[in-house]
């Protein structure tokens, strides 16, 4: 079992560009959540997907959007990138229970 995998591991984008991050959940997990972790901070909840629908959303602007596919994998899209969007983006999957498993994250740098 590969666990939660995210791609790419690192990414550099220019201000104003758009980015897509990808996540494959742990086998058997149908729920995917995305978190943003700024340097020196705890992860902040962005949104959660279940059955291809956004089930819950944190306090993030609608520049942040996502998608879940029938195989439960997920994408996070960020439009009109700002310098402040530079962070580690974490994906977590769960089988509908309380325990969530995190991927290694994608380090996004906006210049």
């Amino acid at each position: 079992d590969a666990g939660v995998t995210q791609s790419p591991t690192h990414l550099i984008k220019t201000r104003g560009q758009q980015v897509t991050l990808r996540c494959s959940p742990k086998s058997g997990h149908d729920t995917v959540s995305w978190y943003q972790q700024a340097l020196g901070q705890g992860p902040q909840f962005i949104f959660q997907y279940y059955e291809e629908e956004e089930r819950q959303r944190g306090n993030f602007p609608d520049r942040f959007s996502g998608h879940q596919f029938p195989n439960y994998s997920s994408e996070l899209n960020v439009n009109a990138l700002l310098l402040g969007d530079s962070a580690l983006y974490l994906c977590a999957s769960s089988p509908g229970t309380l325990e969530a498993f995190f991927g290694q994250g994608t380090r996004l740098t906006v210049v």
Partner: protein
Amino acid sequence: GESVGLHLPTLSVQEGDNSIINCAYSNSASDYFIWYKQESGKGPQFIIDIRSNMDKRQGQRVTVLLNKTVKHLSLQIAATQPGDSAVYFCAENRANRDDKIIFGKGTRLHILP
């Protein structure tokens, strides 16, 4: 409101000693708490969890204590090892409502030789 906070940003402990990391939460309705360990360049790793109907739970070398009266929880690591060096987060998961995990800012644990 939604907040989970830690008392200290950095903790230094001698190798072999016990470590205690503290955390306060503000919402008395919180019903599930998790401790995560995050090593440099990695995602958070589940350590141990506790439900609000418990006051203590033990794992391998780790113990979590929950004091609902003062809204405080702690993580105790026995016989601290160099591999325990990491940032530790307490987190809250209000699974009965929306399943999102709310993290505190983290405590960095330094192991002294």
